[in-house]
């Protein structure tokens, strides 16, 4: 809402400067979004007087003038206009002035004569009026004074953020009332009594409302014999200040009243409205199936059956509260005007305007709620104003259909309740003063007041709304700051929440940075990854996505993580090691809300760090990812985790595994398949993993017990086992664990050896198709220091068992 302070001064005498007024408005709930001074654009334009006007010796259409602009020396100006004579007062733009159209005045030579300024037309100054000649000012205009201040252009506009619950503040009168209440000053309500003459309106027009729930009130006034033309200067200034463009005097008056009182009006050309029983007939009804209307913007619109229209006996002529129709528009030919001042239902207006994409100053007010009591007052004032500016005559009377005037709401405000909720000692009479200033009626009651709510405050429905009104005007800044005093509360995270924190902490400790990505995914990720959802599972589809790339909810973190890799690689960042903790979504036929699963995903590519003077940058691979996952498991207190080779379409065959905890697959890890890297524009190797946080948490144990620190030294023995390629390290370690007995404390794999592919027969150290794995085994007892004699038989037995179980041999 744009508020011109010049206009406002007609409605209220504010005794605060602009900054203090804005501050007060901010602190009482009407935020000032911006303040601008207007008229400043006309800096450098002054009132001048033509002293001499001579024809230009070289050009017929130009004249050469000497102009007094209030300086010691008059200046010479070459001018192309012809509607002036010596002695006329005119606006002069001096060198350096910038006009509203962006033109900057410079010293120029026109056909040989120097011109050091420009005499201006109304259009050049954007003040409205005839464009064909100079703006001739009254003879008493003081030469040399800035044109803006002389002409009354200087103004301050404050832009207010009016919250949706305050439709009453969408007018100058409402803003004046609000300022009156928050500053304790009286305000004036604009009103007019029209001079009426001729045939009564009731004999010229009839009004019928079909559904009073959709149209609370409809009034019509008739103004006859108008001459449609440009508006007077003061009217143009007012509506321009409010943000509208001047159109013609009839439309400008309706806009003026909209801004002044908050009542949207519509003017019909009376002659174009269809008749019934000898009168122009207005019917307010919903549109019928298939009805069409060409609106003021020239568009033909097919109307939905819940659209409220103004119709005549032949069909719709306007969209109620949203936009008029082209056929009944006021034009230069218009003689008689039918002026509509009505109150339409909020939701109906809002639905229609949104559906048709037509949001106007009128629809904005109707959808928030217009005071039905305002209709006649606005119609009276508009009719009188219209008659004044267009030379018309107001027909006597008003046709007013008002099926069910609202009964004013009476609410009890309890003084103690007010103080209990606010937590401040606000006296009853302070509250009463505030509410009265806001236009409420008060009658004392035993525990407070009975408050009558005016119809322009539809937002005030309950006692709490009155409390809100009191506290915002009384001053939130005056409320003492306290803490809740509740006794029964303990602040703590739950075990599950602490576990989720452990997941992040562990992955960070493993060297991964946290990322938060979009929960959206591209439906084509399904194909890019070669992903298949579980039986009956489908992705969660958005009805109104922002783009095709974000049209579904992600069902895996994988795609987003790959996009981050490619985002970084495209920017020259090759070392990427990140994790994300976030929900993935899937749904199924018959489900309303999808399943949300919290996942931990990670991606690693490049190296942990750049190559250094004493360390090379080792490329990250599968085992770096696996290591990070193992850190996570350790931190979660998860033992008995196995990695089982598995195939997934998005992972490279032979470098991928399922992660199994207590028999359940809880996730996967692997290096990304080359075609998937291509699909995401990423360069490999890239290791990716994704784990379900819930199942990990369930199996893990963040709480730890104490295990005794070993008191006796271990006996360490190394063995190298030669086995078939198909035998895995996991199988060997499994075999050792089961064969080792209780003395075997730890098994550590420290070497894997294969003959190079190109090794000659002499160079070969192993039989073809075999590999050698070297382990360090620690034997330890908790009771004593073990000797070789204790260990040897156990170890020998272990070797035999492991070799038998895995087909291995001890390497010589």
């Amino acid at each position, binding site marked *: 809402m744009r508020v011109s302070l010049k206009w406002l001064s007609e409605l209220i005498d504010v005794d605060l400067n602009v900054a203090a007024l804005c501050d007060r408005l*901010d602190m009482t709930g009407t*935020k000032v979004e911006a303040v601008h001074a207007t008229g400043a654009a006309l800096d450098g334009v002054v009132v001048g007087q033509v002293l001499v006007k001579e024809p230009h010796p070289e050009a017929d259409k130009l004249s050469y003038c000497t102009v007094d602009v209030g300086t010691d020396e008059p200046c010479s100006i070459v001018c192309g206009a012809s509607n002036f004579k010596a002695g006329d007062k005119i606006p002069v733009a001096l060198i350096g002035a910038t006009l509203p159209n962006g033109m900057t005045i410079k010293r120029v030579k026109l056909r040989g004569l120097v011109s050091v300024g420009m005499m201006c037309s109304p259009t050049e100054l954007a003040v409205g009026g005839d464009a064909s000649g100079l703006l001739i000012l009254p003879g008493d205009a003081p030469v040399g004074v800035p044109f803006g201040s002389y002409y009354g252009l200087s103004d301050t506009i404050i832009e207010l953020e009016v*919250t*949706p619950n*305050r439709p009453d503040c969408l007018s100058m009168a409402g803003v004046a009332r609000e300022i009156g209440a928050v500053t304790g000053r009286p305000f004036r309500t604009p009103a007019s009594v029209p001079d009426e003459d001729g045939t009564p309106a009731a004999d010229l027009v009839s009004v019928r409302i079909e559904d009073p729930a959709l149209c609370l009130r409809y009034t019509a006034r008739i103004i006859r014999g108008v001459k449609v033309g440009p508006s007077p200067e003061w009217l143009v200034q007012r509506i321009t200040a409010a943000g509208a463009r001047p159109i013609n005097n009839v439309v400008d008056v309706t806009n003026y009243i909209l801004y002044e009182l908050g009542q949207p009006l519509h003017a019909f050309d009376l002659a174009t409205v269809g008749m019934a029983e000898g009168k122009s007939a207005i019917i307010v009804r919903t549109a019928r199936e298939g009805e069409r209307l060409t609106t003021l913007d020239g568009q033909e619109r097919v109307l939905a059956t819940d659209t409220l229209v103004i119709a005549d006996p032949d069909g719709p002529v306007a969209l109620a509260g949203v936009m008029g129709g082209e056929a009944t528009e006021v034009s230069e030919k218009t003689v008689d005007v039918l002026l509509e001042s009505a109150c339409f239902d*909020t*939701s109906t207006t*809002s639905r229609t305007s949104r559906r048709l994409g037509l949001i106007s100053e009128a629809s904005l007010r109707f959808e928030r709620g217009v005071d039905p009591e305002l209709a006649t007052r606005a119609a009276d004032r508009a009719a009188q104003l219209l008659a004044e500016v267009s030379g018309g005559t107001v027909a006597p009377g008003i046709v007013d259909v008002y099926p069910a005037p609202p009964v004013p709401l009476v609410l009890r405000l309890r003084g103690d309740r007010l103080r*209990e909720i606010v*937590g401040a000692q606000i006296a009853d009479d302070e509250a009463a003063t505030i509410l009265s200033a806001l236009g409420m009626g008060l009658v004392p009651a035993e525990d407070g007041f009975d408050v009558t709510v005016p119809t322009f405050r539809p937002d005030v429905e309950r006692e*709490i*709304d009155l409390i809100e009104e009191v*506290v*915002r005007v009384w001053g*939130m*800044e005056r*409320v*003492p700051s*306290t*803490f*809740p005093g*509740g006794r029964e*509360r*303990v*602040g*703590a*995270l*739950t075990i599950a929440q602490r576990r989720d924190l452990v997941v992040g902490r562990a*992955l*960070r400790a*493993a*060297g991964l*940075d*946290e*990322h938060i*990505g*979009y*929960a*959206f995914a591209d439906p084509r990720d399904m194909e890019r990854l070669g992903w298949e959802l579980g039986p009956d599972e489908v992705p*969660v*589809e*958005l*009805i*109104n996505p922002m783009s095709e790339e974000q049209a579904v909810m992600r069902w895996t973190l994988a795609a987003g993580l790959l996009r*981050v890799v490619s*985002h*970084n690689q495209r*920017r020259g960042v090759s070392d*990427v*090691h*990140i994790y994300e903790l*976030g*929900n993935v*979504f899937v749904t199924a036929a018959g489900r*309303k*809300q999808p399943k*949300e699963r919290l996942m931990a995903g990670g991606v690693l590519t490049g190296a*942990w*760090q750049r190559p*250094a003077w004493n360390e090379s940058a080792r490329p990250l691979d599968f085992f770096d990812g696996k290591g990070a996952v193992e850190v996570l498991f350790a931190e979660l207190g998860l033992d008995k985790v196995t990695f089982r080779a598995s195939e997934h379409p998005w992972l490279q065959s032979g470098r991928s595994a399922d992660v199994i905890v207590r028999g359940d697959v809880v996730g996967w890890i692997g290096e990304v398949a080359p075609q998937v890297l291509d699909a995401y524009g990423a360069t490999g190797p890239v290791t990716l993993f994704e784990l379900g946080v819930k199942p990990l948490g369930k199996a893990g144990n963040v709480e730890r017990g104490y295990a005794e620190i070993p008191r006796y030294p271990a006996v360490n023995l190394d063995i190298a086992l030669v086995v078939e390629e198909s035998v895995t390290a996991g199988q060997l370690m499994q075999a050792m664990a089961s064969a080792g007995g209780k003395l075997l404390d730890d098994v550590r794999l420290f070497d894997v050896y294969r003959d190079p592919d190109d090794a000659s027969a002499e160079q070969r150290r192993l039989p073809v198709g075999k590999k050698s794995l070297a382990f360090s085994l620690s034997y330890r007892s908790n009771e004593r220091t073990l000797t070789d004699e204790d260990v040897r038989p156990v170890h020998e037995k272990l070797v035999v068992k492991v070799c038998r179980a895995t087909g291995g041999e001890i390497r010589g």
Partner: protein
Amino acid sequence: MGIAEELSALRSKALAAVEMADSLDTLESVRIAYLGKKGSLTAVLRGLGALSAEERPVVGQLSNEVRATVEAALADKRRSLQATARASRIAAEVVDVTLPGRVRMPGKSHVIHQVVDEIVETFVGLGYQVAEGPEVELDYYNFTALNHPPDHPARALQDTFYVRDLSGERAVVEGESDVLLRTHTSPVQVHIMETQKPPIYVLAPGKVFRRDVADPSHLPQFTQIEGLVVDEGITFGDLKGTLEHFVKRMFGEDRRVRLRPHFFPFTEPSAEVDVSCGICGGEGCRSCGGEGWLEILGCGMVDPKVFGHVGIDPERYTGFAFGMGAERIAALKYGIPDLRLFIEGDTRFLHQF
């Protein structure tokens, strides 16, 4: 030459040899040459047995003296040689301490989660618990139970993401579906009040979604932190005191806080909370748009209509709620000019915090 002279000559020779030794190895060979199993001093001592009973104690004492003297000289020399060797090793091991260390940086928590964690910690300290809710919500929890009228503009398809409802149910409110991506964390309030009796002191952080094109100051997905308190005797002053404490802890004790009346459908009275600009201190500058204040959160007293939806008696209990955007707080706190940085995953950004 008598044995005594022989011993004395050996001593001189041995001491000279010790003195001459220029390395620990040479010194060791000197030791072996004199005191080893086949050493010359050892040989003399071995010959003591051949002496007469009178000579033996005298020569024995002398030879022990010689041995002790040589051993002491050896020990001295060894210490000195060791010291020299250590000194030269130290000299050889001098490093350029300005060479970079071997670093393996731990991973970083996302700056948004750092902010969330800090806020959570503040409120847990005030006796709050932490709660979560689904990101894909029902219209009822996101709007209806929070007192949004059926035609509230926030429900429009252009503002809220809707999700295909596969249940076959018809949308109750408008459009094709009552299932949506939550537009705020406030629905968690309703879930909590449905399942928990007062006193309630809860903080609910989480992702929220709005149909905004990603640009420097908007994201279609961001992070909100919701607070809810329901108890007997909760006042607007309690809300004010709590938020002032929070803001000062988050932004610094020297910052001022103001509550400005505002409107939200699910609180009454409602307010927006501003913190004084950290750059100009409230005078007004470019970063605060000349206002001197930065808006950081919305809050208010729980509207009795919301209590009505969850069956809490508004005459017995009152409460307050507040909500804030973590991205906005992080952007203000760290001066981040473009919110898209939070979600793109550029590791050069992630590493900064």
